[in-house]
């Protein structure tokens, strides 16, 4: 890892994970990725399915707490994306 990178652990749950065909990955990003919205923009470049991350209904949590799109990201953060919850 160089000084200009941070490593993120990214999780995708439920229908979102199925559509993206992955439930987790470790991703090194450069310093241009400052916030959740920067990460979403980066991932959305991967293709059509990945643009689901930009959907208003897709939720995001950072380190297991619901996060807004402007939340800053730090090295080793756990970032999770998921659809609306359906428990109970």
């Amino acid at each position, binding site marked *: 890892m160089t000084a200009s990178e941070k490593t993120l652990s990214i999780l995708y749950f*439920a229908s979102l994970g199925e559509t993206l065909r992955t439930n987790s990955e470790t991703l090194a990003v450069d310093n241009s990725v400052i916030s959740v919205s920067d990460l979403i923009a980066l991932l959305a470049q991967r293709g059509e399915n990945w643009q689901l991350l930009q959907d208003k209904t897709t939720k995001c949590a950072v380190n297991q707490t619901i996060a807004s799109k402007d939340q800053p990201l730090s090295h080793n953060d756990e970032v*999770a994306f998921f*659809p*609306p*919850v359906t*428990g*109970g």
Partner: protein
Amino acid sequence: MIRVQTEDFHLQTEYEQLQKHGHSGAIVTFVGSVRDFGGEGSFRLDHYPGMTEKVLEKIEQQANQRWDLISTTIIHRVGNLAAGDQIVFVGVSSRHRKNAFAACEYMIDILKTQAPFWKKEGDTWVDAKESDSEAADKWLSHSQP
């Protein structure tokens, strides 16, 4: 107290646990069970281990801040469940029934929209319900009971 588990729970046991926490005037319990929705008659409940526990603990804390309670319990099951199975337990003990009723309803309403659980019936993921978010919004728009 919160628990996330695959095993079933027993109402009497949980009721007795609530009683043990001191002389309460009221105990309210809610048990959610799986509706008979036709089709395969079963589903799988996935969750986000770690975050689920954090969210449930926060819901308990918020209920205790809002109302004068003695003890609270939230139990949520995960994994494979079938019609008729118990899925969620919410229990509250308090000196007064109004607090116990309100806190119990608050916890299940908030849980349904904030705790990271997802139901999958066969090959289909269940969509979130508008009525659930309305029930939660009712509490979030009121500052105090």
